[in-house]
């Protein structure tokens, strides 16, 4: 089974801290995604990557950056955490090649910024 692992299930940080959320997948997928999930808003795409060192902005990239130095790892970085970044963060991956590839998700990181 494909496994997408997020390093932390729960995380509490202070305003202004630099925060790293890590995601690792074990199926050699080309594509990786970061979503945030908020009640009443569903999942919104922050950034995605279709290859090593490649990244593209999603719908809500402000306040975030990403890093993909290795194919299996995709990191989300909050340069200076703010309270409005308190949210659930979901990582996902998928394979390129066919049009009906499914996304595989991690179990999420619930981030609280105090």
């Amino acid at each position, binding site marked *: 089974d494909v496994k997408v692992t997020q390093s932390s299930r729960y995380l509490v940080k202070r305003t202004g801290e630099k925060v790293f959320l890590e995601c690792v997948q074990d199926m050699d997928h*080309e*594509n990786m*995604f970061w*979503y945030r999930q908020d009640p*009443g*808003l*569903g*999942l*919104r*795409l922050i950034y*995605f*990557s*279709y290859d090593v060192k490649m990244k*593209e902005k*999603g719908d809500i990239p402000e306040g975030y950056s990403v890093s993909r130095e290795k194919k299996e790892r995709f990191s989300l970085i909050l340069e200076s955490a703010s309270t409005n970044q308190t949210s*659930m963060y*979901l990582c*996902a991956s*998928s394979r*390129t*090649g066919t*049009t*009906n*590839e*499914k*996304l595989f*998700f991690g*179990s*999420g990181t619930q981030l609280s910024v105090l």
Partner: protein
Amino acid sequence: AQTVTQSQPEMSVQEAETVTLSCTYDTSESDYYLFWYKQPPSRQMILVIRQEAYKQQNATENRFSVNFQKAAKSFSLKISDSQLGDAAMYFCAYRGYLIQGAQKLVFGQGTRLTINP
């Protein structure tokens, strides 16, 4: 830009009964994919069912089926013989037709489904 709307924040149903979750979307594309994902309390997103827009036949997966109305841009999920394990947040999602590249999904707001024993 594509949008997905789920107008029912919460739904509840008695165990063994049938429930329908609604989803509408907006797109100018003619080829695309639609999905229903389930997110139980474990937070693990699980793909429930997938529909290709070019297929007229509604997709079915065991107790789960969809009513896909392309002209109306409607994509509802029907759960038959509801079970306690069906309790979860359900998300409707849209993806454009891509030959290559990353398949971005656009999600709706979600519907929280409660199953009453």
